[in-house]
């Protein structure tokens, strides 16, 4: 079936079987691989994208459910060559090791700061908590979101 998705402020029409996950559409149909496959169970945060501004694991949403809503992926965050302040902060804090959790973490930080421009340490931690990282960059990610906040 044909589904039209609004992704990174552009309408994209894809031909996918009903029930296909948004993650599969992003990665296999649209080549937007910045959302990573981690568990397919919505429990690791690696595939998180923003859906109407909220961080949502793309593996938990079908493309029909995603249709008509505004979806932002990591690829749509920078403006040209200018990084989003949260992306910039992750670089400046060196909050990266293997990079597998990075897309989701950054988008979670972006969503938090949209909602709460000056979050507390506890708010930052709980916003990032759904994002598992085996390399252990948690403290740096927390610092990065804090430094990007107002």
């Amino acid at each position, binding site marked *: 079936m044909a589904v039209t998705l609004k992704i990174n402020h552009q309408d994209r029409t894809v031909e996918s079987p009903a029930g296909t996950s948004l993650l599969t559409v992003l990665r296999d149909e649209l080549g937007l691989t910045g959302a990573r496959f981690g568990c397919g169970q919505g429990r690791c945060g690696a595939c998180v994208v923003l859906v109407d501004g909220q961080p949502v694991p793309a593996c938990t949403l079908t493309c029909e459910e995603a249709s008509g809503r505004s979806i932002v992926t*990591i690829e749509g965050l920078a403006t040209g060559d200018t990084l989003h302040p949260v992306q910039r902060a992750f670089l*400046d804090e060196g909050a990266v090791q293997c990079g*597998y959790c990075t897309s989701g973490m950054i988008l979670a930080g972006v969503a938090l700061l949209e909602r709460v421009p000056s979050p507390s340490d506890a708010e930052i*931690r709980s916003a990032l908590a759904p994002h598992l990282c085996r390399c*252990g960059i*948690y403290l740096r990610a927390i610092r990065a979101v804090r430094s990007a906040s107002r």
Partner: protein
Amino acid sequence: MSRIEERLRFEPDGTVTALSGKVEYGQGLRAAYPRIVAEELGIAPERVHVVLGDTDQVPWDMGTFGSLSVEMDGKELRGAAAFARELLVARAAQRLGCAPSELEVENGIVRRRGDGRGVSFTELVAATPLAGVIPEEVRLASPTPTCPDSPAGPDGPDMVTGRVEFAGDVRLPGMLHGAVLHPAIHGARLQSINRAAAMALPGVVAVVEDGSITGVVAEREDQALAALAALNPVWARAPVESPAATDIVLRSDPGTEAALSAAPAPRRLRAAYFTPHVAGAPIGPSVGVADVRADRALLYGSTQVPFRLREQVASITGLPADRVHFDPRAMSGGFGRHNASDATIEAARLSHAVGRPVRVQWGRGDELRAGPNRPEMTAELEAALDAGGRITGWREEIRTNPYTYDVGGDGAGAGRPPLATGSREAAGPWGSPTQMMAMMAGRNAIPPYDVRRAEITLHITPGRVRTGALRSLGASPNTFAIESFMDELARAAGQDPIAFRLAQITDPRLRRVLEAVRERSGWTATPRRKGLGVACVVYRQTCVAEVVEVSVARSGQVSVERVWCAVDPGHVVHPSGARNQVEGAIQMAASWTLLEELPHRGDEVTGSTWQDYPIATCTDAPQVIDVVFTGDDTMPSLGLGEPPAVPMAPAIANAIFDACGARVRALPIRPDAVLRALAESSELPEPGGKAPLRPGSSS
């Protein structure tokens, strides 16, 4: 014997390409290697690019593990760059008609002091590229200069924008998707499948049974997964062979028994410790893409051992190894898990069977059921103290499983062939399989203290579940036992745990890290409301000491609040990257200490999601991780990725004892374990008794 042209290429645009068989999965090699080359060549690190792990371009490498990348391959690159500099200066001397001693190197130009006449590296290599064997003794820049620090590596911008391509992102023309059956029971054999049911489903191209794996290939990934489920496999436990144990005596000093029995009961302690199976649990599960043709094979995938993978796929396909190309992409943090290239080998088998490119993506359930786990460990320790609180005798028995993957073959169900006899790796860099097992399971089994007389024995039996390496091999389990026991001995001797350790240490570098964390943590400042614990290790040659501050809630819930870490890894190549590794190791080890245990009943894994295997999240992260490097730049660079993980478990356990008097001798330290230990602490048996020990007990 390495040749310079295998290691460095001077490009026409003035950049330098450095070649290494190591792979990057977050350790920061893409940042560290250019800096090493730049330090010796006297150029900016931005002018050095690295090619890592591409089997068509880089020299053979045994694999990326053991915190050896900077220590060993970094040393090779440093030697290559220093030798290149010598050759370039010699060429410039000839060109400028002066003595090499009159020349200096600055920013890619060899210049004559005084008149300033110079010639660039590019000009010097334009006609004849540098070539030749890198001599054993090459003069290095001394003291080693350090390039200006930078927080992220050169791959940072691609990571924060999502542009970085992971192996799982590769899509080849005509590519199919494969999926392979993995039993929850370790080593189980397939009795039957419903082949027809799978073949009848849409998009299914083939059901493949090649003797090693049973899987399906379909047009789409969801179709492959549906077909796999339709196979409806029936498994049977394979006949259990009586596990062959390998006993290895690491130390056996005469008079140990006499020293132990001479000590009066209060100064003779025994205790037993246990660490469970810990899953590799990479955030990105094993993945591979393979395009196997009649005359060549191309591979992408998560692997820490590109050249071993190449040999394995050559043996599966019958292709010569030099017709198998592994082309690396970014990879999820591995920490030993990707020493087994599971999904890539499966992809190669499926591609070989169907003659088209195939991608295999393991799911979370596959990882937990069939991925490798850190071996279990049980340690029984016994020691005697003299009247002054010095250790006079030490007995240690460790029971654990192998940390190796392919040596001797195994039955993990992932279809890994044994290594070809006579292969470079089968010969092994470290000798016989027994020596290798002693090196891996026995890592840090010998305490770094002057214990006078010791008997230390390893008993290695196959694991009930699949086992393999995880960040530091046996060092973390062994050090949990030894450093927890050292704390118990210090208490028995009535001494401060740091002073007790310092009194039995001769290594000045180890003393220095302990003194550093004592000072930075405010160790001696009293009173303390929370618990502080200490532990240390000499991991290969890297010295680490850690002090951990914990709070223990009434529920038994432990929070790691602050961590102080002092490390001596010799010359630090990239300070920010090095700190990142130390912090990450601490965070990961805190996770396995407090939370992680593979859910299994005997040989059957009983979980398949992150709910069944929780790891630490941002809410568990400490408030502060304070890192100080105490090494100096006259020493070579040593390993750093694994060592700081090692002291965490005992430092946490010791801090819990300091906080509330609960001595927890088994991991993970969940709230119920703390409450149990607390209850036991009020009813301690007589010291020196001879009752049989079980993990978590003492006498």
